[in-house]
């Protein structure tokens, strides 16, 4: 990786080009402040935040919030609420409490999207109406805060493991602030057909997370879990680039106008200099913006204004 892209474009132009893209704090090693600096230095204006960055802050949660707010970066969203849906009795009550803590933190950070991943728990019901009813309750909890719930199908989720299944329960739950979170990794791992995206209401896509990986196949849940947590790469760096390109173009075609965030878990990136990793992220964002979405090609409207 060189810094060629960065050297050849001025900073303002890079920022303008990649403004719809953000990095995730999970991709980078080190303390929160250093992560935020590296992300901003690479020209990103937004970042997907993870709870441990703040609760594990050496000076505590409030100091973490203050550090984030002074960074000037916008929070794409906050992650992650796990294994929430399908539980009963004490387990359900426990998870509602956890969800409330996550909503409190999400709100303190000024993020308006909370990511909730589909359950992997063997204690959870597989009944889709039960799942939908719990998700509706989660969304109602989020309303006073003005937070949206992006529900994402993990490709190793016990009942919900494809975005088409997630969309089914979201539709059953039918709550305006409950929508879908898409993650390219899980879509490619579970080999869900992109045509299924046609059934989604574009305004209910609350978050799109992008990552690639270097295996052609991830057939078992165990393969998927291991790959997802250790060996994702930035879009354009893996073997699914054509699929990723097709996915992004499909979303744009459907009218998706929201954020793209790079959800890249990678053990190698965890032992590299933050600047180096952030530059890989920048290169990936420029590839998506310039070569896939052609965002720098002036529109007819802009040409007329000149």
């Amino acid at each position, binding site marked *: 990786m060189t810094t060629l892209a960065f050297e050849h474009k001025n900073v303002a132009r890079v920022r303008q080009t990649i403004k719809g893209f953000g990095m995730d704090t999970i991709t980078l090693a080190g303390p929160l402040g250093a992560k935020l600096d590296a992300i901003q230095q690479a020209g990103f204006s937004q970042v997907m935040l993870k709870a441990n960055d703040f609760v594990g802050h050496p000076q505590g949660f409030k100091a973490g919030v203050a550090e984030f707010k002074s960074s000037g970066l916008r929070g794409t969203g906050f992650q992650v609420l796990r294994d929430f849906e399908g539980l009963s009795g004490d387990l359900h009550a426990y998870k509602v409490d956890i969800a409330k803590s996550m909503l409190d933190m999400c709100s303190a950070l000024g993020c308006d999207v909370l990511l909730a991943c589909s359950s992997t728990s063997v204690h959870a019901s597989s009944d889709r109406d039960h799942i939908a009813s719990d998700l*509706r*309750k989660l969304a109602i909890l989020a*309303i*006073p805060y*003005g937070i949206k719930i992006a529900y994402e199908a993990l490709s190793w989720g016990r009942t919900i493991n494809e975005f088409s299944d997630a969309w089914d329960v979201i539709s059953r739950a039918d709550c305006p602030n409950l929508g879908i979170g898409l993650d390219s990794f899980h879509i490619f791992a579970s080999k869900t057909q992109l045509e299924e995206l046609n059934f989604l209401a574009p305004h209910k896509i609350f978050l799109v997370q992008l990552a690639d990986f270097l295996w052609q196949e991830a057939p078992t849940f165990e393969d998927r879990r291991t790959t997802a947590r250790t060996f994702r790469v930035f879009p354009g760096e893996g073997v699914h680039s054509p699929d990723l390109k097709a996915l992004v173009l499909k979303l744009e075609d459907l009218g998706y106008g929201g954020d793209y965030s790079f959800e890249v878990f990678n053990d190698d990136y965890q032992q590299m200099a933050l600047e180096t990793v952030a530059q890989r992220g920048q290169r990936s964002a420029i590839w998506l913006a310039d070569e896939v979405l052609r965002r720098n090609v002036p529109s007819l409207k802009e040409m007329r204004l000149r």
Partner: protein
Amino acid sequence: MSDFLTKEESMREPLQAAFSETMNPIGLNGVEFIEYTTARPQALGQVLEMMGFRPIARHRSREVQLYRQGDINIVVNAHASTDPVGPLSAGLAGDEQMHTRIAAIALRVRDAQTAFNYVVDKGAWAVNTYPQVMELNIPAIHGAGGSRLYFVDRYKEFSIYDVDFVPTPGVDQHPPATAGMHFFGIVQYIGLDRSDDWLTFYQELMGAQPVPAHERFGILPQGTLIRFPSTDTSASFMMQLIEPEGDMFDGAEYVQRIGFGVHDVRAAVKQLSEQHVEFVKTSGAHTDARGAITKTYEHGVVFEFVHSQFGVKS
């Protein structure tokens, strides 16, 4: 044959919808009181007295005063600065927390415990209220922008005020309403694109329903209008949800004002003007037969008047 065809409206059985669990899941029956918090209780008290309210009782342990006229109760809480604040108001700067504002709406329900359990099970946030010895523990949940919704079930045989308040000696405990004023509705300001969220919130927890677009009340008919069910038809009330205008970016959410119903708006405005209440007279919002709106007192206290026979017709 349906009694709709054979009987006058007044002779019919009340609409069954309001009694059914589905349409009125918590047995809602109107508003018991509205609570303001303020750092200037005397100044707010003067405004309320000008509006026809009378201070009738004082809280046993806190700096809280009860004002009343007719069936409308307003609680003025100057004690709030020492109350633990919920996470929703944590974002407010200190002085904003102490601005005079509507801090709570107390709803009459069939059974407070049942109602509270029902809404919490549906996804409401329980709020801790910290009653002192011998005071009522009134269950509460989070509403808009750090405000609370209380559930009160003792409003028929005896009142909650008998427990928590000491009547002011020599003061009529039931002052008559000025110009037939009664509680009509609440106006809540909300963030951009938040109408569906709040409609769903009140629908899910309390069985509120959107009012068709052709039914509008008062002189400021913008926004989304919803009606809350009630076991007594006349106790039903409205809420108007108002998003910021297109060119405004103020997404602050709060309960902005109370709407009072009066039979004759012009007569009410005349009577209140004689009591020195000032009304807005701009081209966009001036008194007419449908309604009127007062000027803003105490940096945020506004009252609206709406033409209404009694309560809301269903």
